[in-house]
């Protein structure tokens, strides 16, 4: 999901700089959203090993949903041609990446 978030940030930067056609930007964001949804579904379907894991599961799913929702909003804006708004909409993804990174061991970040 960190990969999806960072890729979405990069796509938003490319769109804001006018460095790629609008069609490409919308396609990239739609693909990113598809991947985000697939990741959310995969993690959501994992059975927590013990009740003590429920909090961790809820926190992780919340962080994943946050990224998924933001990518979805970016995709909608891109389809509407609101490319100027993409950078602003993408900005919170940086915090979302930092939040997700807390679940990853430092050596693997």
């Amino acid at each position, binding site marked *: 999901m960190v990969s999806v978030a*960072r890729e979405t940030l990069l796509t938003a930067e490319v769109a804001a700089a006018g460095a*790629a056609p609008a*069609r*490409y930007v919308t396609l990239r964001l739609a693909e990113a959203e598809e991947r985000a949804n697939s990741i959310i579904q995969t993690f959501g379907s994992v059975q927590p090993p013990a009740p003590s894991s429920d909090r961790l599961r809820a926190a992780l799913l919340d962080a994943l949903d946050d990224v998924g929702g933001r990518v979805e909003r970016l995709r909608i804006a891109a389809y509407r041609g609101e490319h100027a708004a993409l950078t602003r909409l993408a900005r919170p993804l940086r915090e979302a990446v930092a939040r997700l990174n807390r679940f990853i061991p430092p050596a693997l970040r």
Partner: protein
Amino acid sequence: MKKILTVALGILTAIGGFMDIGDLVTDALIGARFGLALVWVTVVAVVGIMVYSEMAGRVAAATARTVFDLVRERLGARVALANLAASYFVNALTLVAELCGVALAIELVTDVHYLLWIPLVTFMAFLVIWKMPFKRMERIYGVVGLSLFAFVVAVWQLGPDWGLMLHDATHPRIPPGDGVPQYLFYAIVMLGAQMTPYEVFFFSSGVVEHHWTPKNLTEIRMNNLLGYPIGGVLAIGIQAAAYLVLRPGGIEVTHLSQTVLPVAVALGKVGFAFAVVGIVAATFGAVIEPLLSAGYTVAHHFGWS
């Protein structure tokens, strides 16, 4: 000019064979995941395919017969038929992948889903095979496919630390989170994507198509020495572009659309356009190659002229 155009066969073989849909995505995937730690595989693939093609080209030039014809004569009809069936199967799988590749590349700049492009691309391939002379085919797709140099220009434009890049390429290191099995798996994946059998069949058939004889060994060698290294440079260019733009963000490559993202970052819309044109030409060339290769192998196996 005529001398330059004689290397068109090698360029088309390398562009269509080396830079097919599998390689385009695999190079970006590997560049983003392993950096330049698998560049050596591309070097091995270039040398390997050059050796095979040189051998097939020499055999075809010396005997005016292709590899399949000689396999049947030397190994017998049954073994040759098994060889033919296996290569036909691989060609069929490759063809399906390449047709999807062209459609995916066109989808990058249109509002039409890639599955809807497949019938049109298939019909275009049929028209090209049926109507277009071989020489024109190899020149058009070979030359247009050179637009893929946008990836190499993008690497230069990104202003990398060349010394660090050379160090990373010559001192391969497995990134954290990956082990030796994953590293070797991707090495084999890349070797498989770059050293495809139809490149050799196609090159051998091209030599017969050109009516080259032992007097044309220089042309054969020029095609080998220029064509495949061009394919290798383009492959390394894609890996390096992904290494510079996607790897720092930990971005995993899963779609063809991600392959061109570094070019858009470095060169903007113009570079993006060149990259997409190059991808369409390369994948379309890779549609033509297995199609022709399949026809040639069957005809040569049964001794049809």
